[in-house]
């Protein structure tokens, strides 16, 4: 990581976890990173109420909350009309008994999943990554959230060479799944050869 700097002063975090020890642990880490003291809740309903009236820069959620699965809360956030709210980065923490909920959290629109116990290094790496990496936000009938593909793509082949040829922010665009996936694929070896 070298000596690169990160300025997280003033960043607000919503931390939702049923375990008081984990809440304290993560809060201490965030303060160590120079972030504001996080707002903490132990259940999803209280977190929802807070999100409706406050601006948050980062959400850290436990995979299973006492009153709901975090997937429900993430889906609710990702479908909000208030645009800053639905785009907020979400990191999900899973404990030993919650590993099976990883796929649900990912499919609900979480940015990253982190296994507990969380070390300061892992948490800082993940926060730096969500802060520094711009990912498109995909919205379809059954998914709203960050683009889940982590591949570094080569320039697109064919007619539509720019991502913006496909992406029209804020306007509904009709395209098929196959068309979109084909556009996102790197050029085939055959195409490069020709």
């Amino acid at each position, binding site marked *: 990581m070298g000596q*690169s*700097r*990160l300025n997280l002063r003033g960043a607000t975090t919503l931390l939702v976890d049923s375990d*008081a020890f984990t809440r304290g642990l993560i809060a201490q880490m965030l303060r160590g990173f*120079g972030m504001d003291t996080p707002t903490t809740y132990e259940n999803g309903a209280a977190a929802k109420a807070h999100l409706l009236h406050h601006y948050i820069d980062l959400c850290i959620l436990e995979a299973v909350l006492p009153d709901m699965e975090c997937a429900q809360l993430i889906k609710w956030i990702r479908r909000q009309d208030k645009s800053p709210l639905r785009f907020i980065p979400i990191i999900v923490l899973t404990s030993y008994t919650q590993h099976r909920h990883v796929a649900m959290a990912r499919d609900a629109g979480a940015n990253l999943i982190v296994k507990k116990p969380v070390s300061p290094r892992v948490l*800082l790496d993940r926060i730096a990554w969500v*802060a520094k990496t711009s990912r498109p*936000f995909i919205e379809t009938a059954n998914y709203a959230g960050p683009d889940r593909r982590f591949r570094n793509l080569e320039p697109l082949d064919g007619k539509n060479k720019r991502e913006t040829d496909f992406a029209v922010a804020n306007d509904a665009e009709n395209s098929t799944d196959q068309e979109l996936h084909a556009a996102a694929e790197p050029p085939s070896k055959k195409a490069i050869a020709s």
Partner: protein
Amino acid sequence: MTRVAKKIHFPTTRLAELAARPGGISQSRALEEATKSVQTLLDVGLETTHHAMAAIETIAYSAQNGRLALDGMQNILRQADHIVTMAATFGFAGLEEASKSLCDVTDGLISRGLPDSAPIVVHVQAMRLMVPGGVQLGEEEVSRILAELAKVRLHYEFARLSAGAPVNTDPPEIAG
């Protein structure tokens, strides 16, 4: 061919704007500060563990005719999960492994609808020996106890919760 309505946005988050500002602290200093802060929580962690252990013991030893109620077993699972997190955070390897084993066994019993208290009680007794501040066990003794707990899991043929668990969704390396 079905046509699916799709929107693609390219949002800029405030977190990205904040992180892009000049200044701030170096990542190595941030880690140093955070690690120091975490160490101050050791006492809280130990207290949490003692509470969780006491809660688990109360439930486990209240079994009627060797049978436990479902909500009691679910509570044991939650409390044991907290102990796993605490033990792993502060490096109590033996306690972490024994607590994980208790989670595996309790989850297995719940999944199969078995109310047996014996496999839980034996785990609770093993964990009590490994809780910090209690008996000082050598590495060899800890290994022997953990091997016996593994036999309990094997007897019931319970899979480990960690088996087949998806790994973290690790992001690619960030340059700079």
